[in-house]
């Protein structure tokens, strides 16, 4: 365990770790493009140069192993000038099309330029022209001119996804990232290349031109796309959710996430959701406040205790399962509780990296809650009960992400055999609104980004996450629904109400808006540009 000094701060690192890792540990700033903690060291961007005491030449931090007593600094004028020049080498052939570039606002080149640059360009000659808007595959678009050839994406396809679609072709300043014609960048992790691209060379087709990044806020949460439970950041503003990116978690997903998981934002937005409570009887549809609807259901459930059954999917939090199951069991003594398993065949599959066949974030949590309340519902019982009409009122906590429920439609048909189908769910399921022979009550629920809770992933790891924002204000959580259905009222403890930011800062309301818009380090100084 050698000790070293980084800019005067002493730090102890593991054997064989590099100066770069020591910089990370001390949280001292160091410029770099090609180094990525999840990939091998390339050492080609040459930005991470630093002074090592006793070494006349500056060394790169990413490939120099820390030795005992090493004194490193990157604060000297010599190093700063060196970084400035290396940055200039990066920029001389850069097209500077920040206005149309999606990366603007979170671009490595912009960040370092604000830190080290701010000079007049000295390059008077023509820039090297390369290919623009190259279609690399179904998910990614390449702009070779913006590329700084850090080779992160190439190393990703070689080392992590092991698909090797990308390569750097030609040499010198004619080098270009690309795929061989006839072979596309098409793998289940392809969008990670966009995340690790420090500039705007690789952009996501899905996110392209939808928002400028400085209009977006982000919030950390856990992906509910499958039972791996990758740690992710969701990006949103008042118009809705726009993208999902991975967050490093050594125990779960490392630095990566799959392309499927990046689509989860799509079912969070309003147009994919039930927004009000709906009661549908004999083809007639009335809208109702969700809370009132849930409360109304209390009477019916209480009256028909023995004929009520509950179906749960693995898409809710542990807290919600516990609230729902215990209210069913304790308040009403209902034990007909069943677990709805989607894609049964591939349920246990795993691709070796992140993707799991179980497309629910919290199957483990549900099973644990059911076990705690000693419920052993077998799916066959439900089918039989519906057939012989011993189950008349069926409460279903449906999927949030209906895309992963292949058997959704057949199951809706199955559930329609009951007399009264109570559907709790966030995703808009159109087939429910076409059922005419059964009474349907729909209570809109909140999605995982609108509530806090815990998911237990396939490895048994409990992951708590926080609320990001609220999209459908009227919607309830499953816990709230459980409370209302058991006839109680919702009480909101005062301490939990978040204080609005403007009160604390004594800001006017419109100033808060402005503040939100201009976050993400985007500093636009009037008059100076």
């Amino acid at each position, binding site marked *: 365990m050698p000790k070293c000094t980084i800019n005067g701060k002493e730090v102890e690192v593991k054997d064989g770790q590099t100066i770069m890792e020591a910089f990370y540990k001390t949280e001292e700033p160091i410029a770099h493009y090609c180094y990525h903690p999840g990939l091998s*060291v*390339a*050492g*080609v*961007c*040459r*930005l991470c*140069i630093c002074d090592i005491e006793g070494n006349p*030449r*500056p060394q790169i931090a990413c*490939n120099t*192993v820390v030795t005992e007593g090493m004194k490193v600094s990157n604060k000297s004028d010599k190093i700063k000038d*060196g970084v400035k*020049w*290396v940055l200039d*080498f*990066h920029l*001389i*052939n850069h097209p500077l099309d920040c206005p149309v570039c999606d990366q603007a606002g979170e671009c490595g080149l912009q960040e370092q330029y604000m830190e080290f640059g701010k000079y007049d360009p*000295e*390059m*008077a*000659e*023509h820039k*090297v022209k390369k290919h623009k808007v190259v279609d690399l595959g179904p998910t990614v678009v390449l702009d070779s001119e913006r590329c*700084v*050839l850090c080779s992160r994406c190439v190393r990703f396809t070689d080392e992590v996804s092991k698909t090797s679609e990308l390569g*750097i072709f*030609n*040499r*010198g*300043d*004619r*080098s270009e990232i690309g795929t061989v014609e006839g072979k596309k960048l098409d793998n289940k992790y392809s969008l990670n290349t966009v995340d690790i691209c420090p500039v705007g060379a690789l952009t996501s087709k899905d996110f392209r031109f939808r928002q400028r990044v400085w209009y977006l806020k982000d919030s950390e949460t856990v992906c509910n796309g499958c039972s791996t439970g990758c740690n992710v950041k969701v990006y949103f503003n008042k118009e809705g959710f726009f993208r999902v990116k991975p967050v490093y978690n050594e125990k779960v997903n490392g630095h990566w996430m799959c392309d499927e998981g990046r689509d989860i934002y799509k079912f969070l937005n309003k147009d994919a959701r039930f927004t009000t409570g709906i009661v549908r009887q004999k083809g007639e549809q009335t809208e109702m406040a969700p809370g009132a609807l849930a409360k109304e259901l209390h009477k019916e459930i209480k009256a028909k205790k023995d004929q009520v059954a509950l179906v749960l999917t693995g898409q809710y939090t542990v807290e919600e399962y516990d609230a729902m199951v215990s209210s069913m069991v304790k308040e009403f003594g209902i034990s007909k509780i069943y677990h709805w398993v989607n894609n049964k065949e591939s349920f246990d599959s795993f691709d070796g990296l992140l993707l799991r066949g179980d497309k629910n974030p919290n199957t483990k949590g549900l099973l644990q809650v059911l076990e705690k309340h000693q419920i052993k519902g077998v799916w066959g019982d439900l089918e039989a009960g519906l057939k012989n009409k011993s189950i008349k009122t069926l409460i279903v906590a449906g999927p949030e992400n209906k895309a992963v429920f292949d058997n959704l439609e057949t199951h809706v048909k199955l559930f329609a055999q009951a007399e009264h189908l109570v559907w709790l769910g966030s995703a808009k399921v159109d087939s429910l609104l076409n059922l005419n022979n059964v009474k349907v009550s729909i209570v809109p629920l909140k999605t995982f980004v609108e509530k806090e809770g815990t998911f237990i992933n396939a490895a048994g790891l409990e992951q708590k996450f926080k609320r990001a924002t609220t999209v459908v204000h009227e919607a309830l959580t499953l816990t709230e629904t459980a409370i209302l259905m058991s006839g109680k009222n919702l009480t909101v403890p005062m301490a939990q109400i978040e204080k609005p930011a403007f009160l604390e800062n004594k800001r006017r309301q419109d100033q808060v808006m402005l503040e939100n818009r201009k976050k993400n380090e985007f500093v636009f100084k009037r008059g100076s540009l």
Partner: protein
Amino acid sequence: METKLLTEFYHLDEFRFLDGYKKNGGYVNLEKALKMQPQAIIDEVKASGLRGRGGAGFSTGMKWSFLPKNNEPRYLVCNADEGEPGTFKDRLMMERAPHQLIEGMIMSAFAVGSKKSYIYVRGEYYYPVEVLEQAVQEAYKAGYLGKNILGSGFDHDMDVYRGAGAYICGEETGLISSLEGQKGQPKLKPPFPAVKGYLQKPTIVNNVETLAAVKYIIRDGAAAYKKFGTEKSPGTKLFSLSGNVRKPGNYEVNLGYSLNDLINNEGGGMKPGRKLKAVIPGGSSAPVLTAEEASRATMDYECLAQMGTMLGSGAVIVIDDSQCMVDMLGVLMHFYHHESCGQCTPCREGTGWLNKITHSILEGKGRLQDIDLLVKVADNMKGRTICALSDAAALPVLSFVTKFRDEFEFYVREGRSKVRGSFYAQMHH
């Protein structure tokens, strides 16, 4: 005067073949070497003070002793990717005396304990590859290669690998990358090839001339070898003399030989009516010497280093007074721009930038500040990359611009060459 040690029998056509080579003292010393202790050979080479003839001039014995002391398989690679502009000595050695190289390699391989060696020859050398491959076959047949060489119990295999045209593969890690079937991009150091090289195994990469010289160190002993050359630069060296001299060619002389003599005696002096203007003493990457400096220079590592240049691969390029230095820098910059592997940013972008600036000066579009910009860019490319190619591109710029600044300024001001007028426009009409 030439001192023919390595090139003693190069005039004999039969020296190319095994029989002729054996007739002239070939493979005699191999037996002697195989009876020695490997460590003794390393010590002998170390004692001889032999320095790498490829360009860097690093002590060969020292390099060999960096090998980790374990039983991992290790490789010996002969660097015959002779790409440095002005250098053509390795080609001569491979064409005229392939067995001399092979013998030296077997001895070296025995010393470093390598069971497999490669000769990496640049792709353009079709004929030398042919000669080498034939010689390797001959050596296998005669039992100098293969299992249990000359009954010593030492096994060794040798293979010739053809490159495909990349200057950067002359850099040892670039060469290893190329040998591994990748782009010839240099690898990060550390780890050095002697620790982790070809296929992540310890690898020794030596130049053709270095490996061939090993034979003579074994034959005569380190002490005898040290008699050649100077105290710190012992031995003889092949110098590739080219450019504006009457008799260009390869000349083997003692290290420490006067550059003036090399040009005027061996090279036959300048062409009629021409005067010496500048000399690049160690291949295109070496900083240029003015005529005055050249008259004082002796061809050894120390003297040239002292004069701010280097011996490099021993390619002496003579430039006479009819040549335009801006033009020559343009030629070099085009070369380095073309050959930069594109890995490290300062080199990838810097070589392109230098090339653009020099050519805009040549086209008559230069600005006076461009001359300083050349220096600034070159200064900031130096020592900032994985391999030495960016230094190799930067050093000529710095020396050309500082030593012949008047020519550059004249070109920028007048839009034509001080020496050759507006030749450039005619050449690129």
